[in-house]
């Protein structure tokens, strides 16, 4: 049998599992649409009262905020969250007794969940379009956005993985998790575009790994990054992806050597 088969199977099971909680699905879409509407009101009011950055007009800003929310539907899925729970409750032991790569297992599981949530993007977008206007860029831009988003998805996975794998050392990672999550949302451009950071702070923020998750694909989408800049931006994302992947592999090797199963 193909060595990939188990991982495809994990993703399928995760997909099926997500579907079992229907109410959650509806609330997810509902709250997203509500947030889209609120953000439109917020940005419109802010733009009416304050000087906005010259490179982002209001319609681009609303597009940015809406697309960022739709992206979060996918990016907020954290397949590696299970690490934390399993280390704390000891289930990690049974997983380690299987002939599988656990990081790949968590990736596939997360991917299955993601695939389910990605389907929700469609109704969420349809409903959102009733409330706001979203710019639709050219196919070339959309393609570049898709590539950039995929790389960002990878960076996000490894970031989550690193946060959760800390559980092998501290067993309690919630505070770290919350801090990094806030940092990555704010510094990654999910809440506001990084253009809003003043001067040198903006330069720093744009060069942090968090920017690879939301900011780069979004700046491609709204056209802030011209086609000439795509290659460089995506290359920077790949760089972070590589750094995080190597870091994750190292940390995972160390983690495996120090399995302390709770209650064993």
């Amino acid at each position, binding site marked *: 049998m193909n060595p990939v088969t*188990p991982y495809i199977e994990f993703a399928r099971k995760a997909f099926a599992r997500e579907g079992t909680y229907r109410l959650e699905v509806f609330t997810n879409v509902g709250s997203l649409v509500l947030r889209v509407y609120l953000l439109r009101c917020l940005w419109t009011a802010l733009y009416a009262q304050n000087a906005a950055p010259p490179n982002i007009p209001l319609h681009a800003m609303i597009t940015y905020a809406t697309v960022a929310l739709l992206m979060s539907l996918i990016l907020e899925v954290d397949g590696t969250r299970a690490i934390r729970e399993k280390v704390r409750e000891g289930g990690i032991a049974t997983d380690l007794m299987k002939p599988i790569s656990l990081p790949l297992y968590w990736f596939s599981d997360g991917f299955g969940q993601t695939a389910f949530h990605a389907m929700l993007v469609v109704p969420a977008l349809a409903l959102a379009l009733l409330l706001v206007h979203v710019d639709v860029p050219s196919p070339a831009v959309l393609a570049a956005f898709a590539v950039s988003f995929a790389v960002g998805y990878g960076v996000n996975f490894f970031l989550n993985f690193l946060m959760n794998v800390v559980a092998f050392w501290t067993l309690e990672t919630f505070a770290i998790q919350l801090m990094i999550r806030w940092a990555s949302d704010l510094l990654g451009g999910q809440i506001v575009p990084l253009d809003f950071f003043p001067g040198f702070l903006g330069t720093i923020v744009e060069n942090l790994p968090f920017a690879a998750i939301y900011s780069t694909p979004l700046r491609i989408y709204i056209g802030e990054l011209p086609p000439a800049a795509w290659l460089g931006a995506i290359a920077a994302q790949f760089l972070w992806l590589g750094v995080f992947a190597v870091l994750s592999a190292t940390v995972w090797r160390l983690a495996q050597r120090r*399995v302390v199963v709770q209650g064993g």
Partner: protein
Amino acid sequence: MPIIETRDLRKVFRSVKRTPGALGALRTLFSREYVERAAVEGVTMSLEAGELVGYIGPNGAGKSTTIKMLTGILVPTAGYVSVAGLVPYQERKRNARNIGVVFGQRSQLYWDLPLIESFELLRAIYAIPAERYKKNLADFTELLEMGDFRNTPVRQLSLGQRMRGDFAAAMLHDPRIVFLDEPTIGLDVVAKESIRTFIARANAERGTTFILTTHDLADVERLCRRIVLIDQGRVIYDGAIERIKDQYGTHRTLVVEFSEDYPVVAVEGAEFESRVGNVARLRFDRRAISADQLIRRVTEAYCVSDVSIEEPELETIIRQIYVEGYTDPNAAPAAPAAVP
């Protein structure tokens, strides 16, 4: 060649030393003082393929730690370990193909999905060939009577059903060795018996090697011929259950039912233990007096309607060993005479 072999296997856990109190907690954050605790201290044992061995010991004796080293999820501090020719911690994934695990207190089934889906997933994980999978699934469904609940989500199963599912899950890929950790905990008598029957059959018919870790010594007594007894990280006994019973079970209990009421029951050579109604229990040392002799003495002195002899249960013996420690009677004989 033994299927499982360990030599002087050791595992030392190191943890940060904690100082009590709020200030102490603060100090723990910065100081790097460690306390070392040896969970397993030189375990040497060897199992042949097809054995069914009880691995027992009090809480904290080092049983789980040993099992974790055998399954490859804990790296030993020192010593040699080999499972089906592999060094588990060096080849965790390859080792995983040879073993199966059942934890009574922790299911490995997918909580939200029907039981059968967990099996399908395991089929993919272990790359079980279609024919083999179909056959094993059919066999286990019959043996474990899973037909009625194979399509029920695991969270809706009773504990007994879940355990049966866990057994099938652990054995679908025909592992050569299966580790059982408290497999009957919390089950009712009927469910316990069906699990025990299943283990015995799998051992006899499939030749699967089982290591059974449990506090329920009835499991061990029913299933195993050999036990490895561990205490404070060391093996204190390794051998046949019969032998340990022989060594420790020097006392028997004669249960006598009298046909008349006797206010006092006293028989030379036996110790009066208890009495309920007209049934008395007399404890005797079988080295000092034979059961035959004792019964004769009792029947000469009293009118007896029924007698029976109770052998000590493994549980009683093990409890005694936990409390007193194990001493090999074949080793240097104790010399009470030397004590003035």
